[in-house]
Every structure is written in structure tokens, then in C-alpha cells.
């Protein structure tokens, strides 16, 4: 019935909204979006599931909506994971070339990668991604493919993203509750890189900031590779909470004030301006000082960006960010956030929409959908890889299967 199309689904369980995106492999092997579903997220705090029942309900809503739009049935998803426990770091592996002619072979490459993968993590941690960086042969760095070169020693760096297994399991469990399989978990910070960066940006050195409702994921791309990534568990919720506390308004009202009147750049140019908000308890409208609003908000946002800057500095990646900063996620809608990002990182900033994807323009351009689209894109690439492998192996495998059946 549905078998004529092979679809993949990206599911992003975010702090403020849940997005499901269905895509298929379209023209020239680019993902083609078929369906989009979204639901308000109620059971997630700072990127992690805190109420499993509520979240299951919300995920069901989002998946159904996407299914209806695409007229397909979702059997499995690529699930985005995030949260304060997710961390990225660089691990180095090294391997001496043993063959007498010092010719580097495929075996050597496999060994060096295996050595680099021997990371020492606490028991309860699970490796989500391993991103291979360039090789270096006898100290000569930046080698993309060392096979066939001569050398005595090869090294490789791996960027390892890992998180606490139990906390990762929470969101997987939610999806499993709905009788939907999880093909793979993908760190949302990398998914947004996949969605918003074009190859030129990946080459030149770009920082992607996914400013979500509960978390701020960051990833640095340079020389076509993800050099560093991580999560800061601070997001739009924190801004609303600060405003609610500082301006003494209910959280919902603070949320509205943030969206309608907020700014990431100081309160000085709002000096003397006020905003009236209706208040049901004290009948006359409550007057909010815009200067305070701006100041509370800018302090929070600039603190978050500066923490990212400090983190990149520590990882030695700050000087790789040369081409620009791309802000995505719901936080990209904060007024003046591009100005602030330019100020903090000293490079031009832009809002990131999905690139190299076919689909309705109104969806592609929205920064909120970047992670979902990135996940679907990841799925499409996996699908293509599988197909590739199948065509290579089909002949041999068929024979094998045939033999086994007989035996």
C-alpha cells in the first residue's frame, strides 16, 4: 500500500515544540519534504523529557499531523536528542605503520580509527556520534585520505558526542510507547548543522547556534567537518522566567512580552518607553518598563552567547569561526540577536533556514524547523548509504542467503 515510496521521518522533541518531518529521496538525491507535523511540548524541560505521559501525547499529535499531510504511515523515526548531559570532545588515536615499505593501507586507517574510538567514558555514558576529523601522517596535518601515502605514523582526531544513557533512553522510550521504531538517535546540534549550512559555509568555518526553548546547541564547522559541538542548557524558557521574575508578571505574560517587545541588545534605546499589559487582578493595566525588559533579556542572552564563546575558546575552536555565525531555532526570532552575536563573535551573523532541501518555502525558511529538517536529511543520507551498500553487496549476499536457506 505504502510501499511505493521509501520515506524517512525526523522527530525533534524540543522544549517548546515537537516537530515531525517526513521526507523522501527526491530529485538529484536531495531530500524532498512530504509532511510536517508540530505540537506544543508540555513535558520537556531544558531539552529533556520530564513527563513521559504528556510527551507521549504530544509526540502522537505531531506524528499524526505529519502522517496526514504526507499521506504516509510512519514506522520509524530518526530521533533528535539534546540536554545538558550531552557533551562533545576530541579524542586522538595514533597508529604506527608497520609494513616494510611504509605504504599506508586500508587496514592502517581502520586501526587508527579504532584506536581513536577507544574513549574512556563513565559506565552510564553512551556515545551518540563519532565524527572523524582529518588524518595526519608523520605530523603533516589536514590529509583527507591517507591510503596510498607513505609514512611511519598516522594520527586521527575524532569528535565524540556522548550523553548519559538513561537520559537518552527517556526520549527513546516515549517514541517506543507509540509503537514507532527509532532508527537512530542524532544530536540536535549536528542535525541543525546538516540543515542550515551550505558546503561553502562548512568549508570556511561557521558557528551554528541552535537557540531553542530550553537549550542552546552549538557546533563549529570548518574544512567541511564538524570540529566541535556541545549544549548549554539555557534557552528561551530562561528568558521568560527571568522576565517573569524581574518584571513580576505571570510566566505566560512574560512569554508574550519577550516575543512582542523583547530585544537582545540592552535596554538603553528603550529608555523611558513603557508597555501596558492588561492585568485581571489589579484592574488598571500594569505598566512595564521596556528598559528593564530589554536589560533583563540582553543580560541573559549575552551571557549565554559568552558562555558558548568561552567554551569554544577552551576547545581551541574560536579562531576557526571565520565565515560567520548562523543562528537558528526559535531563538533566532529574538530581535537584535544577530547584532549581539556579531558583537560577541566578531563575524557576520545570519538566521539559518534549511538549505539543499526541496519543499514548501514557508517551511524551509523557518528557523524553528531547522532541527526537524536536519533529522530528516540525516535519515535520507542514511537511506542513500544503505541503497549504495545494497547495490554493491546484493549479488554476493543473495548467493549467501540462498546457500544458507538450503543448508
Amino acid at each position, binding site marked *: 500500500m505504502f510501499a511505493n515510496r521509501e520515506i524517512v521521518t525526523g522527530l525533534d522533541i524540543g522544549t517548546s515544540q515537537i516537530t515531525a518531518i517526513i521526507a523522501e529521496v527526491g530529485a538529484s538525491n536531495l531530500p524532498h519534504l512530504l509532511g510536517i507535523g508540530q505540537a506544543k511540548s508540555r513535558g520537556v524541560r531544558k531539552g529533556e523529557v*520530564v513527563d513521559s505521559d504528556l510527551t507521549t501525547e504530544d509526540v502522537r499529535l505531531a506524528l499524526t499531523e505529519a502522517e496526514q499531510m504526507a499521506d504516509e504511515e510512519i514506522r520509524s523515526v530518526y530521533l533528535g536528542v539534546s540536554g545538558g548531559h550531552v*557533551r562533545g*570532545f576530541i579524542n586522538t588515536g595514533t597508529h604506527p605503520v608497520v609494513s616494510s615499505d611504509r605504504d599506508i593501507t586500508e587496514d592502517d586507517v581502520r586501526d587508527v580509527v579504532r584506536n581513536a574510538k*577507544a574513549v*574512556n567514558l563513565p559506565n552510564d555514558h553512551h556515545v551518540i556520534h563519532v565524527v572523524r576529523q582529518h588524518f595526519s601522517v608523520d605530523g603533516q596535518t589536514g590529509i583527507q585520505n591517507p591510503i596510498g601515502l607513505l609514512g611511519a605514523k598516522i594520527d586521527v582526531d575524532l569528535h565524540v558526542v556522548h550523553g548519559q544513557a538513561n537520559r537518552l533512553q527517556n526520549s527513546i522510550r516515549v517514541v517506543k510507547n507509540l509503537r514507532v521504531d527509532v532508527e537512530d538517535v542524532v544530536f540536535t546540534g549536528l542535525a541543525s548543522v546538516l540543515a542550515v549550512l551550505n558546503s561553502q559555509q562548512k568549508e570556511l568555518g561557521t558557528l551554528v547556534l541552535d537557540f531553542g526553548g530550553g537549550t542552546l546547541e552549538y557546533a563549529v564547522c570548518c574544512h567541511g567537518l564538524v570540529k566541535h559541538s556541545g549544549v548549554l542548557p539555557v534557552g528561551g524558557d530562561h528568558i521568560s522566567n527571568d522576565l517573569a*521574575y524581574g518584571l513580576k508578571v505571570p510566566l505566560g505574560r512574560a512569554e508574550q512580552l519577550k516575543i512582542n517587545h523583547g530585544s537582545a541588545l540592552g535596554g538603553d534605546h528603550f529608555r523611558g518607553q513603557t508597555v501596558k499589559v492588561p492585568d485581571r487582578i489589579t484592574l488598571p493595566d500594569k505598566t512595564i518598563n521596556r528598559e528593564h525588559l530589554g536589560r*533583563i533579556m540582553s543580560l541573559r542572552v549575552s*551571557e549565554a552567547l559568552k558562555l558558548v564563546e568561552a567554551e569554544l575558546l577552551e576547545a581551541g575552536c574560536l579562531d576557526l569561526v571565520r565565515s560567520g555565525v548562523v543562528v537558528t531555532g526559535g531563538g533566532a526570532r529574538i530581535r537584535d540577536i544577530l547584532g549581539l552575536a556579531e558583537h560577541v563573535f566578531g563575524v557576520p551573523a545570519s538566521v539559518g533556514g534549511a538549505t539543499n532541501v526541496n519543499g514548501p518555502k514557508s517551511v524551509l525558511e523557518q528557523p524553528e524547523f531547522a532541527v526537524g529538517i536536519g533529522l530528516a536529511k540525516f535519515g535520507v543520507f542514511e537511506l542513500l548509504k544503505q541503497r549504495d551498500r545494497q547495490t554493491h553487496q546484493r549479488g554476493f549476499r543473495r548467493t549467501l542467503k540462498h546457500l544458507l536457506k538450503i543448508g
Partner: protein
Amino acid sequence: MSKTTNPANHLTPNAGGLSVKVMGVGDAGCRAVDLLAGEALPGVEFLALNSDLRGLQEIGNARRVEVGRDFLRGLSAGGDPDLGRASVEADQDRLAPFFADTDLVMLIGGLGGGIGSGAMPVLARQAREVGALVLSFVSLPFDLEGQQRSQRADLARNQLLVASDAVISLPNQTFLEIVDEKTRLPETFEIINRAVLQGVRGIWQMIEKAGLINVSFQDLRSVVQSKHARSSFAVAEAEGENRAREVVESLLAHPLLTGENQLEEADALLVNIVGGDSLSISEVDRIMERLRRHVGEVRIVVGASTNPAMEDKVELTLIASWHRKARSVSLQIDAPRMEEFTFPVPIEGSEIETSFFKRANEITTSTSRYVAPPPDSEDRRTDRFFAQSQPSLNQQRRIKKQLKQGMLKLDAVSRGRFEKSAPTIHNGEDLDVPTFVRRGVALN
């Protein structure tokens, strides 16, 4: 910063080439600085900063600086730290020249009141921004001054710890143990002020006076800069034949080196020894030898000089610092950062081994969030434990007297939406608490 790294600054003819400013903040600070200004400390400029004109008029020796005239109109801040803070923030432009081209700023004040608690963190930050090394001498209120005041003082001290390079605190309460029953109130304050004086003079002597063993400003800077250390200091004096032994013993018995300030857990020590002309290097060696037995593996900076006026006496000034890597903070971090202690499994080749060790060394010197267990002093701790667990009759009585009703701690800052989630601790700060609250930004 660039100013202080410029060597030319240290070549001015003024003794040692350093520009040192001592600023008293608030009533208590002004009185202490007035007393200090009476001393002959060449090359040191004394300033007394207050909002209260009447209090300021009593200051005779130091240069008077009035703040907050616009809204306090020459009155005191009335114990409100917010007013104290606002009064210096309003006058920040006017205060900037006082800190310009200064190498060392010593802020003196009493915490718990308005100006002292509110203004000192602002001033410390301002002075550090222009590159000065900031040491704050603060006195903490007596217990009798009430819970509110001491809580306010604690809050201010924490802010000050962040804002200045080192905070040297003198809890007034400990002075009750030094003075006897009959000492009158003004005399008690006089004694406290003298203690501050000794501390300031000790530091000044250490870096300014050439002696048997010199300590340069750079030594001081390397010990305290950006460490945000909680410090305390003690001074002891002895004379006679066994003065080397006696001076160390009386120093170790000093009430300021008890309680949370255990000497063996200190991270850095600054020691200054001043003696009469008879002071010999072997005597200095004996003193340090005795002192070393009581501390762990720490960084010690020693200065020694002679002063004919001391005659047969020897004076030992000690400033001990506990760096702000409080164990409590490291415990709050739910998942330690992986970079800091995951290493590749050493395979073949020596290359990886060296990088492993290099990495390991970096960790011990960096301000790592992974804190190694405190230096071993197991025997001492066991002794102390037994001493505590079997109190003598006298001690039992005292313990009973100290029992008092605790106060319910009300969490002043609500975490709102994040009330029920695990706190987000980053570098020892809870990021769920609004930034403007943590930064102490006033919304008026």
C-alpha cells in the same frame, strides 16, 4: 591590564615604583583608613569614601571622597546595600581617576551595613577593570548585631569574592576571644582597626621594603591574582631567646586561624617576618621550618626584613588563602566534564604517552572544575575528630550554651519554571537563576 604589564610603570622613582591606594569604604572603613593614614607608609595614598558627610568630616588624615550626593544628600545609606551600591554606581565616572594607573588597591570596610556591603563589590570590580590588583579587608559583624546583618554581610562577602582578587576577612566575633571582659567598646574597635592596620602594613612592608628576603609585587600578584581567594591573616609577636619557636606557636593559636580557616588546607601562604637588627637568616629558616610542618604542599611566599625599632622582638605576619574552588561546588556538578579526565588508552609509541602527561599537568595547574581530594592530613584530622568526640566537661558546657534556635532559610531567589528540575550548574553558578540577579544589576 596592558598598563600593569608595561615594565616602564615600575621604574618611577617612587619607592619600588608601585602605586598603592588604600581606600576605606563606609564608616568602619573610613575610621580604619584614618588610623592607617597616620602611619608613615610612603608611596601609599589613603582615601576615605562615604556617603555620610558627618562621618566624613571626622576624617583628618585621609583624602575624603563623598559619593551618592544626588540621592542620599550627604546622609548615610541607612544599612541598605542597594543604596550603597547605587551611590557608587552613580558616581562611577567621578571615581575612575582614583583607580587610574594604580597597581594595588586595598579596600577596607565593614560588611553588614549599607555603604560597605553595597559599594565595595562595585569598587573592587571597577579597580580590577583598570588592571589593579584588588585586596579587600573586610570586617564581619558581631553575632550580637543580629542575623539579618550577618546574612547581609555573607552575601556581600560572596559578591566581593567574585569581584576582587582576594578577600581578607576579620570576623569581629573572633576578637571577643582576644579582648578581655573589661575592654570597652571603643577600645575593641580600636583593636580591630589595629588588626587591619597590621595586615595592610604587613603587605606593604612585604612588597616595598628591601630586606633579607625580598618579595616583589609580582610575587603577590602571582599568589592572589584572579584566584578570588578567601583569606585570613594573623600576626604574632615574640621576643627573647626562643622567639623563633614562640612566635610560630602563638601564631598557630591565633583565633583567626580556626574554624573554616584551617591552616593545613590553605592553598597559598604569604609570610612576612620582621625582626630587630639581630634577626638572622638561620632564625628565619627556623621559623619557616616550623611553619611548614603545619601546612600542606602549598605555595609559600616569604619575605623577611629588619627594623631597628623592633629591638629584640620578631613579628610574624601570615596571610593564608583558600582558593575559590570550594569542594561544595565540584560536588554539585552532575557530570564532570569529560575532556578533563578521559585520555586515550595508551597504545603503542611514546607520542601518546607524552601528550597524556602534558594533559595531566595542565589539569593540575588550570582552574579545573575537577578538584583533586584535599591534601592529606589524615593523622591531624583523626586527632581533631577524637578531640571533638570526647569533649571535656568544660567544653560540654560551652557547646550547650552555643545551641540556639536556627533560622528557617527562605530561598530569596525563586527558580520559577525550573523549580523542579535539576539545577544547571556551570562554573559554580546556577544558570537557572536570572542573570540580572546573579550579576546584581539593579532595576530601579
